[in-house]
């Protein structure tokens, strides 16, 4: 880096480009030609070998297989799927399964991680030590081991459906997974969700207006109460006006299996619990270091200005802590998403698992692995783009 200005001074001052090897710029060009040449040769060598091997082994190429019948049964699917569907549909189901576990995992890991980070800083010795032991223990064990552990626990130690553990009304824990009641969906629920959305949009708009008014006139607006009213209160009123239908479909044991309700399969439950517990330990440490990074003087200064405790946390400590917390948390989200590929070891049909079966059935290894890599690259890219946007949003505005 620093050699650039020097290179400029070394060059003869009066016109004419020095083409000797003593000129660093000329050497740089030569080095780059050598490196690019070597990489290109390596790639060409591998590609030509691969082409020759595909030829001799009579392996088909191209993505034509995507439109052929898959004949591949998938245990759990978010969308409608039959083994007679195309490979493309099977892969879509796998992708949706990956996204399902990743999104739920990110939400729960953030909640548990924040809790752990705060717990580690608790003045209560027992709470702080419990959190510390948890973090130390989880972080020093391979995730795959933890996944296999949970899966085995669900599969081997939980009883069959007949003697299912029944902790709450309508919840059954058995070796078939966790059976939970589901809401019988009615139009009132759709309207409820829509009004929540309207509430969120209205809150954002009111918040913007309130900020502008405060900046202009100094008058404060009770934003928290207004936001809660718009996002929770208003939809609730709408829901009650619509008669508040709330019927649950309860699972019950009939014969050897459950009828009604919805199941979290042992594979999904094990994967989600494992990913959440593992990632939360890392997020906990990030949250802890983020809070510690805000110097105590900031809190004292805010208190000296007469702000209340809650406001100190919300207006002074958290915004500064978030700046430290967000970038490493982003990479934890990415890790969680990539780690969800371990699902293949316990038989949850995620994208890796489906693509692996596909490449075994079709023999088209290159295409199968290309699909896996493309999917993860695009997920990684989207998460980091979003988090970069968010990070910029909360970054310190400097002169």
């Amino acid at each position, binding site marked *: 880096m620093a050699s650039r200005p020097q290179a400029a001074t070394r060059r003869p001052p009066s016109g004419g480009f020095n083409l000797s090897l003593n000129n660093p710029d000329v050497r740089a060009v030569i080095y*780059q030609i050598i490196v690019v040449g070597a990489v290109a040769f390596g790639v060409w060598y591998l590609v030509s070998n691969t082409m020759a091997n595909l030829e001799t082994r009579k392996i088909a190429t191209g993505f034509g297989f995507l439109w052929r019948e898959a004949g591949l049964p998938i245990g759990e699917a978010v969308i409608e799927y039959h083994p007679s569907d195309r490979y493309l549909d099977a892969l879509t189901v796998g992708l949706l399964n990956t996204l399902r576990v990743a999104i739920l995992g990110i939400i729960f890991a953030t909640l548990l991680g924040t809790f752990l980070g705060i717990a580690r800083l608790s003045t*209560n010795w*027992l709470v702080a030590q419990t959190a510390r032991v948890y973090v130390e223990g989880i*972080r020093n*064990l391979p*995730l*795959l081991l933890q996944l296999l*552990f949970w899966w085995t626990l669900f599969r*081997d130690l939980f009883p069959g459906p007949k003697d299912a553990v029944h902790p709450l009304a309508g919840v059954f824990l058995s070796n078939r997974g966790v059976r939970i009641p589901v809401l019988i969906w009615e139009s009132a629920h759709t309207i409820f969700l829509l009004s929540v959305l309207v509430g969120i949009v209205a809150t954002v708009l009111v918040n913007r207006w309130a900020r502008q008014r405060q900046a202009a006139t100094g008058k404060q607006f009770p934003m928290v109460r207004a936001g809660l009213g718009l996002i929770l209160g208003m939809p609730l009123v709408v829901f009650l006006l619509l008669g508040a239908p709330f019927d649950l479909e309860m699972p019950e044991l009939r014969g050897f299996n459950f009828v009604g309700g919805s199941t979290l399969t042992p594979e999904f439950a094990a994967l989600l619990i494992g990913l959440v517990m593992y990632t939360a330990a890392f997020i906990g440490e990030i949250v802890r270091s983020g809070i510690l990074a805000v110097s105590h003087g900031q809190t004292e200064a805010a208190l000296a200005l007469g702000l209340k405790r809650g406001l100190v946390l919300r207006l002074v400590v958290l915004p500064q802590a978030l700046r430290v917390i967000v970038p490493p948390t982003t990479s934890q989200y990415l890790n969680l998403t990539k780690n969800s590929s371990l699902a293949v070891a316990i038989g949850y049909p995620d994208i890796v698992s489906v693509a692996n079966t596909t490449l075994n059935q079709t023999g088209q290894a290159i295409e*199968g692995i290309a699909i896996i890599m493309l999917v993860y690259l695009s997920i990684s890219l989207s998460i980091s783009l979003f988090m970069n946007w968010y990070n910029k949003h909360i970054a310190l505005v400097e002169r």
Partner: protein
Amino acid sequence: MSDTQSHYTSPTFAGTANGTVMSRNLTDHPAVRWARAKLFNTWLNTVVTLIFAYLIIKMVIGVVTWGVINAVWTVPGTNTQACRALSGSGACWALIHEKFRFIMFGTYPYDEHWRPALVIVIFLALYGLSSMRRLWNRNLIWIWLVGLTLIGILMWGGVFGLNFVEQERWGGLPITLILATFGIALAFPLSIVLALGRRSHMPAVKVICVTYIELIRGVPLISLLFMASVMFPLFLPEGLSIDKLLRAQVAIILFAGAYLSEVIRGGLQAIPKGQYEAADSLGLAFWQKTSFIILPQALRLVIPPLVNTFIGMFKDTSLVLIIGIFDLLNSAKTATNEPAWRGFGLEAYVFVGVIYFLFCFAMSKYSQDLEAELARGHKR
């Protein structure tokens, strides 16, 4: 928090400072004072403490009941009736008793088990020696070369009257240690090259390095392992083939190289510009500048995050289970495949979990101590 601390460590001082006389009775033991300050200082904390204590005690009782009180330690042969009778209320440690050697050494010939056992000892000795800072010099490289040669001779055999053991029969802890050690050792030079390349001012070099690093970091290790197991054979010319363990090893090296290079880049970025300029003004060439001035300082700065990456890589070697290599985790999983032992997977996982934990915990403790020691040097 600092207020409370001064209260219970030096009550007399706090008492005079506050201008009040603290009431103290004779039962005011330090432990009681400690508990009051740290566990029961407010009513909310008291409630939280009681809830946590209840849950922890309940959990400990549950684990002890399962793992010690109700546990079955040995069974005659493979007659697991006693274990089955527990139906999950107690651990079947008889599995570990029976399968210990299989979990540790895989399918390595039974009479030769002393060889992988010795390999584990050599690995531990190498790690131990490398952790001593006063041995960090050129001799350490020779110690490692001798150690790794010994490991190779012991595992393969075929010389000095040792029977040849083909790689397919290796398994257990030695595989995990081999994958982790070689993975890190060979990824390290690769990562230095990548990190330097990423900071290079030559655009073509920079683009190649950035593409490689981001591509590898954007995909899960599993996809690379799959690539190693199904695509590498296609890459090689007709007639040439390398065995599965080596292919997985290559995938781990390529993967670890990308992650390590980002850590090293952090160190390179932390070196003040003056160091580069000083080296330039001495007339040092690029490689002299890099290897004598920049890298020694940069690497020293990033030792703690490097060790963290090593821990991650050590844990990640367990992923080779998915492509069917018999590392420690896979041999534990396979140990319960036999009909007699089916259903006792938890015991096997708890056992290998303890082994993984010991290795990782030792590494993280070491990195924390080292961090403190290096920070002390800086504070001077």
